[in-house]
């Protein structure tokens, strides 16, 4: 035991290393935190107000008389509540967040600062045109970057997230078909590896879904596709690079097949971050594609949103774009808000996710054409490096060169008793957020790893060492290690079945433990 000059012990003895139960249930920095309903009261408040003047009410007979029950906290109490809660979250700023298909890249803080400039943040969407010229200019400039990067003529800016952008693209396709009187074209081809949003979106446009299988190389089975092509095909929804992290190398032929029967090609742009600056989707024959500004262009995911899903459209679909849109005229920028005969309509109350537009443009200006291309190349290089480095211990689903994400199957776990879920939970104890698991559906026990360009080689090497060591541990038969995980997270594994069987979706005084 060593002591400092005050006689205070400076190295722990064996006893303090033993796990033990605290009297409070807290574990040092990891503190338990009750619900606001258990710590606040309706009378307490963290906001001060001036005195009321006592003006006569004009609420008529509609004044609220019941108790709402909303609890309040003073500012210091509220700070502690939310800071303690925040510490129960993993985050990109903490470590590798390799969620495939989700693109957890660094969120530059300059972008946060720019979005908060009062000239952007404190702007009402319906202010007179002359008072918002800078905002319309920003939307127009971002549109220019998006159109140039994608090689497409037009972009609809209003969709609020990726799935909303899909809806925009598919509605434009439906409107174009209707304008041609093609009422028989109602079948949409969707690969089985597609995001669930694709089929869910297509049915909102009155289409039926026809699933195309994948081939052994993880791409669209061209023979199956050719067999499904027919006059009733409205279009195809294809993710490229696809959800296996692979470029659909037959994409130009796919576009020709679809166009050959008068259909349209919707490309799910969730993975555009693998292409920016190297490939323009417009050169691949697509008619519509949404971008996820919150993936490709680094706007923060915020624990589930907000996103932003600008959607590029081909010349054929451009006339059917939704309102509103920005138009430059002699005297400045205008906002066209009313739909003409062709536009399919309005998707949201206002003009889209301005706060995300500012962040995305800040990201684009910072990178420039050179930096964007480099980011794409680094993202693809990082994924291939991870794939190559893990292929000895884990099972690459298809092998070969991948794009921005590396896909593994659970083959290496066969017979070990360890499943993909257990492997993922063990990663949590090692300090990592797990990769995407059990998606895409075409690979058994899928593990989809997307490192993004934000990871340094040193960080990736540490990650690779841990993953390989875990794989070896699984194969060595240490099942208990995996089944118990996570042990060092704020909570152990949660009972999801119980949550779904008897849903408790809100706090009530009598029902909560």
């Amino acid at each position, binding site marked *: 035991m060593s002591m400092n000059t005050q006689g205070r012990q400076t190295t722990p003895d064996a006893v303090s290393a033993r796990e033990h139960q605290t009297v409070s249930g807290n574990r040092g920095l990891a503190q338990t935190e009750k619900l606001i309903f258990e710590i606040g009261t309706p*009378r307490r408040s963290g906001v001060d107000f001036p005195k009321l003047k006592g003006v006569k009410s*004009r609420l008529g007979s509609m004044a609220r008389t*019941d108790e709402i029950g909303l609890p309040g906290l003073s500012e210091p109490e509220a700070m502690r509540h939310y800071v303690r809660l925040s510490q129960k979250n993993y985050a990109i700023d903490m470590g590798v967040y390799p969620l495939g298909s989700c693109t957890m890249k660094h969120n530059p803080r300059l972008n946060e600062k720019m979005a908060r400039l009062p000239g952007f943040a404190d702007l009402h969407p319906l202010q007179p045109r002359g008072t918002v010229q800078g905002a319309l200019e920003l939307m127009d400039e971002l549109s220019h970057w998006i159109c140039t990067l994608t090689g497409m003529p037009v972009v609809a800016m209003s969709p609020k997230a990726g799935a909303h952008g899909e809806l925009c693209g598919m509605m434009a396709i439906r409107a174009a078909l209707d304008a041609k009187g093609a009422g028989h074209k109602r079948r949409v081809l969707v690969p089985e590896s597609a995001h669930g949003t694709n089929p869910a979106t297509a049915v909102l446009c009155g289409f039926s879904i026809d699933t195309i299988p994948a081939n052994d190389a993880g791409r669209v089975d061209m023979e199956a596709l050719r067999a499904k092509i027919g006059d009733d095909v409205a279009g195809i929804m294809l993710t490229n690079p696809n959800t296996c992290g692979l470029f659909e190398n037959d994409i130009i032929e796919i576009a020709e097949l679809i166009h050959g029967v008068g259909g349209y090609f919707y490309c799910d742009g969730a993975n555009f971050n693998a292409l920016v600056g190297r490939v323009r989707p417009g050169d691949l024959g697509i008619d519509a594609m949404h971008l996820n500004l919150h993936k490709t262009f680094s706007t923060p995911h*915020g624990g589930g949103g907000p996103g932003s899903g600008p959607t590029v459209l081909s010349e054929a679909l451009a006339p059917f774009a939704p309102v509103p849109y920005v138009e430059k005229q002699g005297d400045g920028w205008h906002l066209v808000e009313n739909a003409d005969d062709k536009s399919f309509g309005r998707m949201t109350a206002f*003009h889209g996710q301005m706060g995300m537009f500012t962040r995305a443009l800040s990201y684009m200006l910072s990178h420039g054409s050179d930096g964007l291309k480099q980011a794409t190349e680094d993202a693809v290089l990082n994924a291939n490096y991870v794939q190559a480095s893990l292929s000895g211990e884990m099972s690459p689903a298809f092998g070969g060169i991948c794009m921005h994400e590396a896909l593994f199957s659970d083959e290496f776990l066969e017979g070990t008793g360890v499943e993909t879920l257990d492997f993922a939970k063990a990663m949590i104890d090692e300090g990592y957020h797990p990769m995407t698991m059990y998606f895409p559906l075409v690979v058994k026990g899928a593990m989809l790893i997307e490192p993004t360009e934000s990871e340094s080689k040193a960080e990736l090497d540490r990650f690779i060492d841990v993953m390989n060591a875990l794989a070896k541990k699984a194969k060595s038969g240490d099942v208990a290690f995996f089944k118990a995980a996570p042990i060092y997270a704020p909570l152990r594994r949660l009972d999801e079945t119980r949550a779904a069987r008897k849903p408790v979706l809100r706090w009530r005084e009598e029902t909560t433990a």
Partner: protein
Amino acid sequence: MRYLPLNENDRAAMLDVVGVKSVDDLFVDVPEAARLDGLIDLPTHMTEAEVDARLTAMAGKNRAAGAGPFFMGGGAYRHHIPASVDHLIQRSEFLTAYTPYQPEISQGTLQVLFEFQTQVAMLTGMDVANASMYDGSTACGEAVLMACRVKRRKKCVLAPGLHPHYAAVTENLCQYLDISLDIHAPAPGKDVDVLNGLDKDIAAIVVQSPNVFGEIIDLEPYAVAAHAVGALLIAVFTEPVALGAIKSPGEMGADIVVGEGQSIGVGLNFGGPYVGLFACRQKLVRQMPGRVCGETVDAQGKRGYVLTLSTREQHIRREKATSNICTNSGLCTVAFSIHMTLLGEAGLRTLAAINHEKACMLADKLTAIDGVELVTDTFFNEFTLRLPKKASDVVGDMVAQNVIGGLHASRLMDGQDDLLIVCATETNSEADMDAFVSALKGALS
């Protein structure tokens, strides 16, 4: 490039491990015809200071709402947001986390969602709420689709006070699903004609209160009429602060309540991101769209939270899902919930009372002007005036005097050229109001 950690040595070493000579070899699957040589024709990289200067200059071309007297509502409201809200939502753990798919390391986001859902349910007088939609308008559209699923009927009635953009978004969402909408053109006044001759094939009536003109609507007759034909009442609001002063839609018999949550914690943001609130009765929960968080226990019996009822959702149910929504308004729900916690019930009620008082005072001042007539009998913080001149011209004249004096109704609808929709909140001083009065007088003279 400041955001890219790899250097040339790293890249060379990594390419070696991959077993290729150059980065071009990683793009071999791209058809040759589509491979780009060189750089795309856009400017090259900029320093942080350069980008800051460029965008700050662009922001400077806008007249921020707070840069002078400001009285605009119409679906987005300017309120003071406590500084701690923005500080907390910028914590890395909230800002840079993904959707909480791994609950053991996402309890922060999940507990806030559970608290948010409870706050929304309490505020609206409903049993349950989801974890948010994109905004009030898409929540309204989704509510109509939900009512049609619940009732297995394909028709809905949209009452005349519904914000026209909400009606347009709903119409857009329904257009390819054989759902017919009976949309009543907006007009001020307590229009209950919509209640006459309701068919038995109606799935829901959609009513907004306070409506787009600011009029407070008693929802009870609508609920009675809807229920009499076996339909649901969908109540809509655009100003959640109003629910601190007026009866909750749940108390008046609504079955689904949707609205815009932007007023609490989120800010104006030129229209987005906002946060769509969506609440309903317990028995309808399995037809509800969107993510929802639920309580459970961990392996040691400790209370915790998970995303649940996912068999309604697209990633499980695909084409049979209740909605295609995936990403929602995550961080805006956190902002909403923090602001609501800082307010508490007492704070919300006081905030609502001040908003109402300011609006009453402003209405008195403006209607004292010759020829200006108040057309909304009851209102919360927004009311409508009939002007002796075209309202769009008046708004333009007032802007020239640095007063954003409300919203001309013709921006949102046809045939109401002389109506001006005016909003006052706690952010408006008496001096602002006097400037408005003087600008309006000037514009009308």
